[in-house]
Each structure stands twice: as structure tokens, then as C-alpha cells.
């Protein structure tokens, strides 16, 4: 913290004059009542905030929003001059709220379940080996988490699996995730594995942490160095590199479908037990709270969020509607219940922190 203050002080000294110059012309070319709102967002929401329609709707509401993307768990250390923070899940938002003594109810405008991206050939190998299956009627793929846990526990290798394997399937079978200490999706992965390893019960105490941390540590450390935010492993994957099985938000795949940019051989697998990531916005100032209210309650913004693959809390149909109007080579599951995708609860922040420590430090 001390260091952060030092840096800030230096920047204020250096930047003070330029700042004064900057503020004025900025105000002039906009409607007078427009206020600028600065915030930190999870990288998976960057394109949403860069969308022209989103900007226009926010401008109609008197808001010019400027965002910097950062890992959800990095946000708490970088809140100086920020009006809001918008991490990808509730625990980092709760941590910020606790730290800033914010008592209002958390606003969760939209959510997205965690899914797994794979190439079609990889999905077929998984299916041949009891690690995944495809529903014949809907075409939706599910990933068999308990069998995956077995594979992690026993260090199962791709070359031990039967079937016709492409060259990129080598080494241990594991999901590529982000760093759980910086990124929500990595932390959600730890939460999900802990639930499964604890006999499909949420870990609620130190005994549960002890019981599950061995597996968590294996699943995280086998990956070696971890990327810090969710768009990185996903971008690597889409560039035909990166991991063979990449943990991502459903929204990232859905956005590709809506934009008709989904690669032909992309398959989205829903873990048969997954975690819903509640994108939670924390207003730190009056303007930040105004934005939070708009994200939650503005019908137009909810529609636009669905266009970027998110599931708005206040509008259960928006997500399915967007998918209907778009075509994609793979199937998503607008109705998660019908697809028999179960939801694992997330442990309380204190326990989650201990699980993350166990996963990364052993």
C-alpha cells in the first residue's frame, strides 16, 4: 500500500499541470451534463464497453465511461481515482466492498457460466474416453467433471487415451486456466474443484481446505506459469496455440457466435457441474453508482450485454434471443437446467482465499 501511495504522489506532482490543461477541452465538446466515469473492468467485458451502441446509450444517460481492464483480484490495489470496479465474479467485488466499507447491496447486472473451449477433434477424444458427451437432441456438449478429477488425480496423459489424436494433444490432461490469485475465472476454477473434491459439498472449514488442497495444487501447478486475465488463454486458443482445453466464460464463446466469428472446429463444453460467474459492479462514487444502476436496470444495455454473450440477471430471455438471431457451428445451452448443468456454490471469501493459497502454494 505504501508503495502505491508513493507512486501516486509522484504522479500527482508530475501530472498536476497537464491534468488541469486536459480537463477543460474535454468538457467543452460534450454535452454539459455528461460526466466522465472511470473504472476497472475484467478483460472479458472490454469489448462491451468499447461498443458504439453501448457508448451511445450511456451518453444518453449522461455517462462517458472510461475503462481499464485488469485481473479481478488486481483491482483492489488500483482503485485510486476510480468511480467503479467491475470484476468478473462476486468474491473480489465483496473484498472491495468490505475494504471500502460499502454496505449497499451488490449489483450483479449479468452472469456467465464457466465453460471449456476445445477443438472438435479434441472433444471427440474426450467423448471416446468418458470425459465428455454430446446430447444428441440439442447438440450441447458436457464435460464430465468427476472423471476429469480422476484424470488429474492420477496424472492421466493424452497418449493413454484411446482414439485418433491430433498432434497438439500431448502430456497430461488438464484445463488451462488463469492465475487464481489475480483472475476471477482461475479462482472460480479452484472453487469448483474444491466443491467436487469435497464430495459435492461446498468447503466451509479448515478441514475441507485440508482435504481438497492436494488436488487443487496439482491442477494448478501442472500448468506452470499462468496467464493473468481471462482473455489471454482464450486468445491464445483462438490463435491455434495455447492449451488444448481452455477454461473460459460462456460469454466469450457466445460473443463469437453473435458476431459470426466462431472458428469452425470450436466446441464449447459445459462442465456437468460448473460455477456461475456473477459479474458484479461496485460503485465507488456517486457517478459510479449511477453507472451501476444503468447497467442493471437499463433495458437497452441489458440487450447489448446479451449481444456480448452475457446473461442479464433481469432478463432471462435476452441471451437466448441473441443466439437465435445468430448462427454458429457449435451449440450453446440457453437453458442450463434443461442441459442438466448443475451449479456449484462458491465458498465464502475467507475460505476461498485459503483454497487459493492451498492451490498455489501447496
Amino acid at each position, binding site marked *: 500500500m505504501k508503495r502505491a501511495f508513493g507512486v501516486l504522489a509522484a504522479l500527482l506532482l508530475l501530472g498536476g499541470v497537464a491534468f488541469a490543461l486536459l480537463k477543460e477541452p474535454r468538457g467543452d465538446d460534450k454535452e454539459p451534463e455528461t460526466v466522465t466515469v472511470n473504472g476497472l473492468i475484467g478483460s472479458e467485458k472490454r469489448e462491451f464497453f468499447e461498443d458504439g451502441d453501448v457508448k451511445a446509450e450511456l451518453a444518453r444517460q449522461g455517462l462517458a465511461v472510461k475503462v481499464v*481492464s485488469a485481473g479481478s483480484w488486481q483491482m483492489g490495489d488500483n482503485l485510486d481515482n476510480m468511480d467503479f470496479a467491475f470484476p468478473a465474479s462476486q468474491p473480489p467485488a465483496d473484498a472491495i466492498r468490505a475494504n471500502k466499507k460499502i454496505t449497499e447491496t451488490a449489483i450483479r447486472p449479468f452472469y456467465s457460466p464457466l465453460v471449456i473451449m476445445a477443438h472438435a477433434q479434441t472433444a471427440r477424444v474426450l467423448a471416446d474416453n468418458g470425459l465428455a458427451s454430446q446430447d444428441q437432441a440439442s447438440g450441447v456438449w458436457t464435460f464430465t467433471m468427476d472423471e476429469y478429477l480422476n484424470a488429474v488425480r492420477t496424472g492421466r496423459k493424452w497418449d493413454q487415451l484411446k482414439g485418433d489424436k491430433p498432434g497438439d494433444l500431448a502430456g*497430461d490432461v488438464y484445463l488451462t486456466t488463469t492465475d487464481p490469485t489475480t483472475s476471477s475465472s482461475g479462482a472460480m476454477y479452484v472453487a469448483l474443484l474444491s466443491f467436487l473434491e469435497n464430495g459435492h459439498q461446498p468447503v466451509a472449514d479448515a478441514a475441507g481446505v485440508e482435504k481438497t488442497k492436494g488436488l487443487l495444487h496439482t491442477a494448478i501447478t501442472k500448468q506452470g506459469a499462468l496467464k493473468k486475465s481471462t482473455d489471454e488463454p482464450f486468445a491464445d486458443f483462438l490463435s491455434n496455440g495455447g492449451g488444448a482445453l481452455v477454461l473460459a466464460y460462456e460469454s466469450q464463446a457466445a460473443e463469437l457466435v453473435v458476431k459470426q466469428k466462431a472458428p469452425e472446429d470450436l466446441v464449447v463444453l459445459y462442465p456437468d457441474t460448473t460455477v456461475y460467474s456473477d459479474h458484479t459492479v461496485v460503485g465507488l462514487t456517486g457517478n459510479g453508482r449511477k453507472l451501476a444502476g444503468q447497467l442493471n436496470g437499463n433495458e437497452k444495455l441489458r440487450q447489448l450485454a446479451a449481444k456480448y454473450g452475457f446473461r442479464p440477471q433481469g432478463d432471462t430471455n435476452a441471451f437466448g434471443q441473441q443466439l437465435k438471431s445468430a448462427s454458429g457451428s457449435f451449440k450453446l445451452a440457453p437453458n442450463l437446467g434443461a442441459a442438466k448443468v448443475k451449479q456449484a456454490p462458491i465458498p465464502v471469501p475467507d475460505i476461498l482465499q485459503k483454497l487459493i493459497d492451498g492451490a498455489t502454494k501447496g
Partner: protein
Amino acid sequence: MMRKSGARGLAVGLAVLVATVTACTSSPKADPPPKQSDAPAPTAQAGVLRVLAGSELQDMAPVLEEAQKATGVTVQFAWTGSLDGADAVSSGKTDGKYDAIWFPSNQYLHLDDGSRSKLLSETPVMTSPVAFGVRSSVLADLAWGDGAKVTWGNLAEAAASGKLRYGMADPSRSNSGFSALVAVASAFSGASAALTGADVQKATPSLKQFFTGQKLTSGSSGWLTQAYSRAEQGSVGALVNYESVLLSLNKTLPADQQLTVVRPTDGVVTANYPLTLLSSSSEREREAFGRLAAYLLKDDVQKRISELTLRRPIGAGVAPAAGLPTDRRHELPFPGTRAVADGLLSSYQNELRRPSRTVYVLDTSGSMAGPRLASLKSAMGRLTGADDTRGVRRFRDREEVTLISFASKVKSTKTHAVPSGAAAQQELASINADVQALSSDGGTAVYSSLQEAYRVIQRQQAAAGDDRFTSIVLMSDGESNEGATDKDFRSFHGGLPAAQKSVPVFPILFGDAAKGQLQGIADLTGGKLFDGTGSLDGAFEEIRGYQ
């Protein structure tokens, strides 16, 4: 300790090249956009992003010029090596001086817990795997067809049999060298997940075999390429570098030197060039960063980047430029802890690579008296210190170090062989004692002393009959004014047998040295001139990457 080294490496990088992209490609401007200058103060309208970057990114200049027009964001670069850059960030040297960093990979930096609070936002911009570029004649000789089925094991076998001689950048400095080291260690240990210390141990015998084929080392990929082009026909048949660099290089290489890109089928390590915002940046620069990052990810810009640089586009929707193969490779995990990464680097330097024969030709003429001699002693003394976890500096186990002190003539020649393991310490102390005993008087006979250095190497090679990375460092603070002339030296060099003629001289500019003379020596011998006027410590350390 590492932090200090990073700062010095950085200082050298800065001294060598600080440039703005727009200044590099100045053209007449009808209405000049907001001021483009290399002064750090930006104007109110146009953001200037100060970026500490890997020199590989120089090829992005045209894209960044277009970005400047489209976004108003001017990128101001300072260059340094990937791992030195990581040190600079971890130690806080970039705080307030740079707004962003841009290296082929942040993986090494991420291993440092201190970096977590330093990096705010990372946007991968493009990708390129580290690969082997193999000359067609070598490929044919090894019956590797089009190279599509080659494994790391095949490469090691070919290296051990003497059929594959390659150049690779120093993994303690360069991400391409480090990535190759990680890949080859993973392949040979049979590790099916991230490397551990035990895996590295297990792979050691195969790694030693593999590295018998490494004939060129370099602190930078630019010089490596030059050295490859310069090497006598057939003496170096392959280069380790990014796929994009190898393919781009083919555009300039003559037909008989063309390289076929081999991505080993058992796995590669891929760079994803994350444009990275530093936490110490201010609000205005954060906004500029956001605009630039968004611009670089646009489909048409991604297409342009891929076609211009032959890197692969990031994300969906844009096909890679023509000529980039689309079959997938297993991505080998990068080590997950600093201990494993640094352990691997230390093994490489002290155990795995071919040992070095290093000759220092040190000017101790009268003009060196006082602070200059003290600087020299300090800079050389640092190379004998043990506080160097990833092997960027200290004389390595198995290295043969010769110190030639000269003025009007050679005053003394002292050779030390650094043993392996714990015994190394004593020999390092002995080298330091010789360094600290240097004293200054007399004139400056640069060329005669260099000739003596080549004769020393000839004798050492004859006596040992070994095969080492061999190089000469020449440090002088004045003009050669006694003994052999430039012309004499040229004729001497022309008559050297191949084993000595191929030995490069790395001159260090210092004090009132004659830059023309030193540059001439570097050019003639295939070396490279280093500037020690800013930091002699930095120059001596940077040269370690070439030895």
C-alpha cells in the same frame, strides 16, 4: 542482486537506442498532429505512451505509425532484453518512467511475486512460436523432408552427431533462447506437465548432447542473425528464433542460406507479445493505452500485422498471413516458479552449454590512472561475484578466462580455468585478485596487443584441442599510438587460420577511445562495439551474452 543487474542492463539498452516510432519514419506533414517528440512530456491532446520493449518489436514501426494517425497515441520506445526488462519492472526501475512494457512474453516476469502489483492490464497482440530455422542443404542431408515431422529428439541426435550446428540467443537474456531451453528440457525429461527441478536433472545428459551443436551465442537476436549470415559456409546450418523472425529473415537471405522453419512436433513455446499497462501509469496514459490496445486488435489491423511481421494474429476472425502453417502444436508449459526457471538457466550456463574461452585485452596505459582504472576494476570484479542466480554475469563453471593487460606492449597475460561446483569460488577470487592488481602506465598499443591475444588463443586451442565459444573483449580508453597499425592488423587477421579468424572481438568504447578504430576492429572480426562511456559495468555485463 538481480535487481541491480536489471537496472544496469536497462541503462545500456537505453544508451544504445531511444527512439520514437514517428521520429524514425519522419515524413513531411501537412498538418502536424500533436507534438511528436522524444521528450517525455506529452501534449494535452495526444497521448504519448512510453514503452519499454524488446527490440524484436522494431518491426511494428509502420503499424504504430498508422496507429498514431488513427488513435492519436504516439508510442515512444526504449529497448532492452526480455529478462532484463523483467528485472527492471520487478525492481521498480520502470515506475513513473514508463507507462507500459511490451515484450514477447511476460511469463518470466510473472514468476516474480513483486511484479503482481506492477502490472495492471495485459493485452496479447500477436503470437509466434519459437522454432528452428534449418538451412535447406542441412535439411536434405538429414533426410528431414520438409521438416514437418521433426522432434526435439531428432534435433538433439543431429546436434550430437555434428550434423546440426546452430545459433541460439543467450537464454539468460532473451526470451527466444529461454523458450527453446524450456522446450528442449521438457522434451528430454519426458515431463508431461510443467517442469520441475527433478525433470531438469533427468534431462541433463540429453541436454548436454543437444547443446554440443550450439555454435553461436548472442545477447541479442539481431547480432545472431548477422553472425549466421557471416559464418563460413556450412559452419552454422540453423538458427533458433521466433517463427516470424526466421520467415522474415528469408526475405533478405541469399538462396543457399534460406531457412526452413521447423516447429518440433513434440511441442513449442509460443510468445504472445502482451502489450502491458503498468500500475504506475497515470489516468491519461491508461486511456491512451486502451485506445492503442483496441486499435491493435481490430481485424484489419491484425491482418496488417500478420502480413507485415509474419506473426500470427490473435483471436478469431483473421487468418494468418500466407506462408504461416496452420497445423497445431502442443504448447509446452512454461516453468511455474522462479526457482525452477533460474535453476534451469544456471544449469545451462554452468553445466549444459559448451564452455567458453574468453580473452580480455585491457588497456592499462597512463591515461587510465585514477577513476578510469577504478571503473575497470569494478566492472571486471563484478564478473567474479557469486550473486547471480540466473547466470547473466559471472564467469561460468568450466570457462577459461585470460586477462591481457597492455600499454605500450603487453604487460601480463594470466589465464584462469574456472572449475565446476564449489571449487569455482576460489578461482573467481583469484581472477578478481589479478584484476585488482592492475596498474596504469605507458602508451597504447591496441593492434599489437590484439595480435598477441589471437596468438594466445592459437596456443590455447592447440594445447587443449577443445571446442569452445571463443571471443575477445577489448577495452581501451584511447587511440592506438604505438606498435602495429590498423593496416598491419588487417593483414595479420587476413592471414589467420579459420579457427582464429572466426573469433570475434567485442570492443568497449571508454574514455577518449577512438571510436573509428574500435568500430573497424568489430566490423573486421565479426564482433560488435559496446558503449562503456555511460556505464562500464553495463557494457561488461552485456557482453557476457555474447561470450
